[in-house]
Structure formats: structure tokens, C-alpha cells
């Protein structure tokens, strides 16, 4: 989507993703300048391994491209990119620089686009791998092109050839074969072809352009691997003549040929250097990680020799095994809240996981302590864990009788199910209430895709206090203290025909540079074994205060869960203190969550009333992994017409959740969750990050994740 003019904001988002991409090696294919598998500036039929997340920066005369590519399935590759055309401001007038925002004279387009590629055939001895792709699926057509491409490897040589439509047909070689299907296929929608500067408003599927046009072009590439040097020699012929960019003077005459080198500096990190079509040197940096990677089991934080345990709890004292086990659990980042011994052989435990990202690791730690301390007469252990302080799942474990019990057979002896109450425990750990903690952390917030400043940021200190009052009552306060901010450079206000429920973002970021981000009192509990609720009141998020309730039905073994929330909220003053503005609304949604049969893929649908009073539904599709990563996309359609909604036509974006645990030497439940919106508009908007959702915050304890991690629950043997 092009045509800047509205607010776009995210906290960290691509910056964080790029940083984390450095943190772990992945398995990416040869990445092209568009961030997809390919060679130089042409696509190939190659793909990365499933769940690879690749971030790429490429710098060329024609454009600088920042992209995030995700291999959704083995055959399906997707990519999101932000393009700054003519980033060095080259003027058509020799020796001059383009003035800022002088779009009429210079190429100054900033463009966001989605690419999708699907592999139709796998490579075999005689048949090449074949893929079909769309380079600008929802965009305004700045990169509008489609292709069918084949790749075949011969030893160290990898050959690619393909035909293209749209821009990839600018160097035409033949008539579009699809014209035989319909005469109308010769007409191509918004795409302007040569020299056009004004592109569409974007946001919707460019169905009137796909595979259309009078002609097709032929492109190709050669890659030669030098595995010893981890170096690839590259040659490409592009059927995109860059006619528009040449017409605007940002590129010299082009003959279609490019060549270059690609070096795998380390696993998951690739550097590219090329001589580009039309002259000029191109640079490319890409990093990859595997979002599905399961980290090794870490040792408990702060547990061990040298860490003080009160002498009165030592083994040679006469303190009972339960107290010692509970003390060691607390030193391991767990709370053992209650215990009941039934008939000397059945131990029921209630535990809380306070530090472990993967619930199976917490269970493993509890079981290790059971093996160490519980009387040998205990043969069966039933552990009930919680999420948000509410019992959420249980695991039944058969304790090994002797050393012949091997870890290979143990997982089958774990039963995972719904939470089991301990109505009359023999022992409970008494925790003083209220208790709580204060956390101080650095926070980086970014404002992306501003036409003048593609990346603006604020660095602040985030001070958070949580108080647990017991019985499900919790208080939370978050203060954000700005240290440095570039947001004062933003001068564009969002224009909207709807109530400005989100497009006043600039004023919140500038007038509320420092302020209260959250101040809430929450009550959580269960209405029955499988029904959870939370009710809350206070300052719910940056822009809204109010009251609300969130209810979730979730049952172990069920692929469907349901929930609803209702919120009565009032808009906050821009200074983010206690004051309120006039606008208020009742907003809420009924939600259905479906764990699809496709591994790690889940779908959520929320239908209801949004902040601007519009009625509609949101669909989210995510791949979510037991390690805490999730990657997905969402889209919202409401009764607001596209023309009223404005740029982008409807609300949509990407979902990322990045767990810190994968990149930390210690156990942590911390994670960064963000929604990357392409355009910040007022239609189809919910409360941000609040209520945070019972579903989202309890998801890690659902039985499908526990089931995937059975082997990880087995305690050390």
C-alpha cells in the first residue's frame, strides 16, 4: 500500500524481530532482494524450511527493501515488505537531490506489500521444483507482478527460469497465454505499467490485476555453490525493466542482467553483494531463525549450592518432606500451594509456574522434586497447575518403581487433563497477602512507515507494579517514563470519517510522552471447572479507561473454545494521566477459538462491536508453538464501507509473539507480543492489549501444548 499520510505505530515490532533473528540460526533458502527465496531480484521455486522466519534488508539504487518472510508451511512462503523507492533521493536532474516529499518530480514512494508463493511440484531427478507467486497481493501495485517459476539443481548449479506478469512482463517475450481463457485477461487493474506515479489506495485483493495483461516476460537465474567457502555465485536476468524508476531518473538504462555473490557468514546469516541491473552496487543482509525451535531444558534459576536455604529446612533437620519439597520448589521458580496424600500412595499437588516459559519444564521440575522427596509409598502423583492464578490443567504421573523405569516408556504414563481440585488439602503453603513485586525495564516504542521518517522511536523506562491481594484479586500499575523520543517530529494527523478512536495516536505519543499505561484492579476466578472469568476496572490501556468482563469456556481435549467480553470504556486525555475525554462506547465480542487439525495452526473469530461503534468480525489465523512463539495475521471487516474506512480499506495486520526465554540463559516467561498494522485507522479497532484475553494468557497450559511436550515432562533419571 502506498500513498502515505496516516499514522502507523508499533512497539518495537520489526526491530525486535530483526534483533531476534540474529539470536538463533535458521534454515533459509537463498534470499532475494525482496526478502523471498530467489536470486538477486528475481524469484525462484526454492523455499526455506517450514517455520523459518527471515528478515532481510536490501539496498539498491532502485529501492531499499525491509522485509519479513515466514515459511508458513513446507509449500507456502509469505513475505511482508516495506519499500522506500529511490532512498538516496536521486533526482532526474543530474547533480541534484530530490527535495523531501517532492513526489511529482522524484520517485519518493513508500510502499508496503505482501508476497505469497506456493510450491506446486517438488523437485525430482527429472522434474524441477515449480512454484507460483504473487508479489503484491494487497498492495497498490508498486511491485505488482505474478510469476510461475521452476528451479532445478544440477550438482552445485541451481538453475531457475520463470514467466511473469505485470512488472515482470515489461520485457515481454510472448502474449499472455491466459488470454485464451478470456479476452478480459488483457486488462490489468491499477497497475500503471510505465512511468505511472499514482497508484491505487490498496488494501484489498488486487483481483483485477492478477495474471492479467497483454504479455508475459521471461526471467531466469543461475546460482553456483562453492560449499567450502559457503559462497554462492549469482547471475540473474530480470524481465522487470524498472520502466517507472528509469522514467523518474532513479535508475539508469537497464539491460536486465545482474550478478553478485552471496555468503553465508554463519548459520542463518547471509550477506550479499551484487552489481545490479541498471548500474549500481546492491547490498543485502538476511537473517533467519526457526520459530518452532524448542530450546534445551534449562536448569532452575537461582537453585543451588551457594544459594541460601534456611538451615532449619536442611535435610538433616527434622523438617518434613513436604516443607523441604516446597522450599526447593520455591527456589526453582515454582510455588507448591497445596498437597494431599490419599492412602499413602496417591499424592495430589497444586502448583504455580512462576518462571518457566514452557509449562512442561515446570512439570518436570515438580516431578523431579517429588522423586527426590516424596515417600517411596507414593506411586501416583496428580499435579494441578494454574494460569492467571486459576487451576487450568492437570497431569497424572506414575512414579517409577525402580531403576528399570526408563525415560523411553515414561511419557506414556503421563495423563493430561482438566484441572483437578484438592478440596481438603493436608498441607498448604501460607503466602502473605497482599504481596507483589515491582519491575523496572527499558521499553522501546517505534512509529513505523511515516512518509518522512520510516522509523521513529522512543526509549523509556517502564515501571510496573503488581499486587496480589489473594482470592483472585490483583492490582496492576504501569508508568512509562520517556527518556528520549523522536515522536515530536510527527506532524501528520490521521484523517477519519469515524470517531477518532485511534487516529489521535500522535497526540497521545506527544502529549502523553510519559504517563500511566495501565492502572487496573482485576478479579479472576472460575465459574465451573472449565469456565474462567476476569472482571476489571481502571485505566485499561493507553487510550481507554473503563470496566469490563471477560469469560472463557475451555476444556481439555476439545479443539473448540468460546468466550466473550463486554467493556464500557471512555477515552482518556492525551496526557495519559487520570483525565477523561467525552467519547465513550460499549464494546465487546463473542469469540470462538479453534485448534485446527493442522499442527500448531489455530483460528480465532471475534464478532461484535468495535470502539468506533462499528459492527463486524475479526478473524485471526496463527501458528503458535509450544516454545512461546506465535506468528499470524488478522483482518477485520465491519459495517464501515471501505471508502469511509480510508487508506487500507479495512483493518488488518500481522501478529507476533516472541518469547525471551529462547534467547536468555535463564528461565523467563517474558515475551513481546505485537500487532503490526499497516495503517492505523479507526474502523474495526478493539481495546489494545486489554483485557489481554483469558485465551491468550492461558493458552500455554492448554492440553495440546502439554501433549506435544510429554517427553519433556519426564524428570531426570
Amino acid at each position: 500500500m502506498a500513498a502515505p499520510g496516516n499514522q502507523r505505530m508499533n512497539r518495537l515490532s520489526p526491530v525486535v524481530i530483526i534483533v531476534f533473528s540474529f539470536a538463533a540460526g535458521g534454515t533459509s533458502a537463498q534470499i532475494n532482494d525482496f526478502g523471498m527465496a530467489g536470486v538477486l531480484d528475481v524469484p525462484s521455486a526454492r523455499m526455506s524450511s517450514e517455520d523459518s522466519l527471515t528478515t532481510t534488508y536490501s539496498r539498491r539504487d532502485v529501492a531499499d527493501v525491509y522485509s519479513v518472510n515466514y515459511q508458513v508451511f513446507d509449500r507456502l512462503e509469505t513475505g511482508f515488505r516495506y519499500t522506500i523507492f529511490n532512498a538516496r533521493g536521486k533526482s532526474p536532474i543530474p547533480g541534484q537531490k530530490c527535495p523531501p516529499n517532492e513526489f511529482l518530480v522524484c520517485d519518493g514512494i513508500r510502499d508496503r506489500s505482501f508476497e505469497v508463493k506456493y510450491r506446486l511440484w517438488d523437485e525430482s531427478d527429472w522434474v524441477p521444483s515449480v512454484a507460483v507467486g504473487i508479489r503484491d497481493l494487497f498492495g497498490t501495485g508498486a511491485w505488482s507482478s505474478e510469476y510461475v517459476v521452476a528451479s532445478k539443481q544440477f550438482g552445485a548449479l541451481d538453475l531457475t527460469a520463470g514467466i511473469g506478469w505485470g512488472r515482470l512482463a515489461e520485457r515481454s517475450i510472448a502474449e499472455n497465454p491466459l488470454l485464451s481463457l478470456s479476452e478480459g485477461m488483457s486488462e490489468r487493474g491499477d497497475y500503471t505499467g510505465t512511468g505511472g506515479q499514482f497508484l491505487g489506495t490498496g488494501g484489498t485483493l488486487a483481483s483485477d490485476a492478477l495474471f492479467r495483461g497483454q504479455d508475459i516476460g521471461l526471467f531466469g537465474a543461475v546460482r553456483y555453490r562453492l560449499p567450502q567457502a559457503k559462497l554462492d555465485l549469482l547471475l540473474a536476468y530480470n524481465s522487470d525493466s524498472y520502466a517507472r524508476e528509469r522514467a523518474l531518473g532513479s535508475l539508469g538504462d537497464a539491460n536486465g542482467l545482474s550478478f553478485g555473490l552471496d555468503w553465508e557468514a554463519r548459520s542463518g546469516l547471509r550477506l550479499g553483494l551484487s552489481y545490479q541491473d541498471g548500474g549500481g552496487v546492491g547490498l543485502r543482509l538476511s537473517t533467519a531463525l526457526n520459530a518452532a525451535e524448542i530450546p534445551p531444558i534449562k536448569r532452575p534459576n537461582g537453585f543451588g549450592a551457594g544459594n541460601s536455604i534456611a538451615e532449619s529446612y536442611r535435610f538433616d533437620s527434622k523438617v518434613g518432606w513436604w516443607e523441604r519439597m516446597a522450599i526447593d520448589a520455591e527456589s526453582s521458580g515454582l510455588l507448591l500451594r497445596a498437597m494431599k496424600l490419599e492412602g499413602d500412595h496417591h499424592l495430589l499437588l497444586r502448583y504455580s509456574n512462576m518462571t518457566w516459559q514452557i509449562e512442561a519444564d515446570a512439570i518436570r521440575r515438580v516431578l523431579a522434586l517429588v522423586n527426590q522427596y516424596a515417600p517411596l509409598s507414593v506411586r501416583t502423583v496428580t499435579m494441578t497447575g494454574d494460569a492467571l492464578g486459576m487451576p487450568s490443567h492437570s497431569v497424572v504421573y506414575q512414579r517409577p518403581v525402580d531403576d528399570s523405569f526408563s525415560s523411553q516408556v515414561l511419557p506414556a504414563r503421563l495423563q493430561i487433563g482438566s484441572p483437578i481440585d484438592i478440596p481438603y488439602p493436608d498441607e498448604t503453603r501460607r503466602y502473605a497477602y497482599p504481596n507483589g513485586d515491582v519491575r523496572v525495564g527499558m521499553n522501546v516504542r517505534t512509529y513505523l512507515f511515516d512518509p518522512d521518517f520510516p522509523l521513529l522511536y522512543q526509549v523509556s523506562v517502564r515501571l510496573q507494579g503488581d499486587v496480589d491481594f489473594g482470592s483472585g484479586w490483583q492490582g496492576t500499575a504501569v508508568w512509562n517514563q520517556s527518556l528520549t523520543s523522536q515522536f515530536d517530529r510527527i506532524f501528520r494527523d490521521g484523517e477519519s470519517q469515524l470517531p477518532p478512536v485511534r487516529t489521535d495516536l500522535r497526540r497521545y505519543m506527544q502529549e502523553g510522552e510519559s504517563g500511566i499505561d495501565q492502572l487496573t484492579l482485576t478479579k479472576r476466578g472460575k465459574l465451573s471447572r472449565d469456565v474462567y472469568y476476569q472482571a476489571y476496572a481502571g485505566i485499561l490501556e493507553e487510550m481507554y479507561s473503563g470496566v469490563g468482563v471477560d469469560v472463557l469456556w475451555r476444556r481439555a481435549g476439545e479443539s473448540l473454545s468460546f468466550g466473550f467480553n463486554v467493556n464500557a470504556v471512555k477515552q482518556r486525555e492525551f496526557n495519559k494521566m487520570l483525565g477523561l475525554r467525552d467519547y465513550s462506547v460499549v464494546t465487546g465480542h463473542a469469540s470462538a477459538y479453534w485448534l485446527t487439525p493442522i499442527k500448531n495452526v489455530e483460528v480465532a473469530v471475534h464478532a461484535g462491536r468495535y470502539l468506533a461503534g462499528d459492527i463486524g468480525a475479526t478473524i485471526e489465523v496463527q501458528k503458535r508453538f509450544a516454545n512461546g512463539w506465535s506468528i499470524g495475521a488478522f483482518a477485520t471487516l465491519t459495517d464501515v464501507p471501505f471508502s469511509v474506512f480510508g487508506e487500507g480499506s479495512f483493518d488488518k495486520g500481522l501478529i507476533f509473539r516472541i518469547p525471551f526465554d529462547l534467547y536468555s540463559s535463564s528461565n523467563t516467561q517474558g515475551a513481546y507480543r505485537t500487532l503490526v498494522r499497516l495503517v492505523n485507522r479507526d474502523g474495526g479497532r478493539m481495546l489494545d492489549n486489554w483485557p489481554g484475553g483469558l485465551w491468550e494468557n492461558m493458552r500455554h497450559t492448554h492440553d495440546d501444548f502439554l501433549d506435544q511436550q510429554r517427553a519433556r515432562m519426564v524428570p531426570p533419571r
Partner: protein
Amino acid sequence: MTRATKQIRLLGTMISFLLVVGCAVRSTQLESLRRIVSTVGASNDAAEYAWEFEFNGAGYTVYPVSDRDGVVSFANAEGLRITWDGNVLVAINGLPGSVGHIRIESQSDGRRLYPLGDGQSRSLSCGPRRNWQLTPARAGWRQDCVDGSNNPPVSSIHEVEFDGAGSIRIIRATLILGAPPATLRRLSP
């Protein structure tokens, strides 16, 4: 050189000194000690001497030192001290968590007295050592102790594994009945 590096080098030097000039050792344990000493080499780098002690999910780096009467001990600066008599781990001090200290007592009739996690103890009868050879690079001996007279039955193990050069690379031994054995693993190749 950082302070931590200096401390490591100093510790390494001390360990070398203790290993070279150490106290008199009983002949039955001399071989065991020699096998550990042989892993040290001439380097002054403390990492060369490091062993990893792992018990029930917690692990620590320890260094071998010789102790009085030639019993081999492994220790670290955090107060963890593991005593090995050449056959079994006989005492642990500074064990992680609320365990703290453990002593496994040998009884006159060849049985050994082990603690249980619930504070009780149990006497186990130990069989003869059995040698094994899995691969040219993995050989060792193992001793099993059992007490099947009471329910539930309990057992313990003592295991020493050698590498292809005949040096000890792993020592495994039960410390608490019902809990997994503790493992001492040489970190240097």
C-alpha cells in the same frame, strides 16, 4: 586479565599443586586418583580440570582435589563438596536446595545406609562390582545395591565409566533413594 580469569587460573594452579604434591593415598584408591590425575595434563587452565556435578536437574562445575586419607573430593567455591572413596560417593556437603548434606554410611556387613527423601533411611545390600564394555571408548564397572525385603523395593547404583584412554569420564551414584543418581562428568575431552 580479568579478576575472574585470575581467580580461575589461581584455582587451577592450586588444584595442580594439590594433585601433584597431594597427601598420601591408600593403595586401593591410588588407581582411581591416578585416572583422574591423568586427565589434568600440564596446562594451567582451570577448565582443563573441570567436572560437572549434576543432581536432579541442577548442575555445578566442580574441581577435583585430594583430601585426607587419599579420598578424592570435588569442590567448588560455592561450598559444594563431593567425597568419593574410589568406589562410591560417600558424602555430599552443600548440595543444592534443602538437602544440604548427605552421608552414605558403609556398614560392617557390606551393606550401605542411604537416606530417603522423607527423612528416613534404608540399609541396602550391595552386590559385587560388574565390569562392562559397551564400546572401545566406553567401559566401566557398576555395582547394584537392593533391599527387596520391604515394600516398596528400593535400589541404588554406583557406576564408573572410562573413556578409551582408561581415564574416568563419568561417575554415577545414588545419593537419595527414589531420586535419580547424581552424575559427575569430566568436562575436558
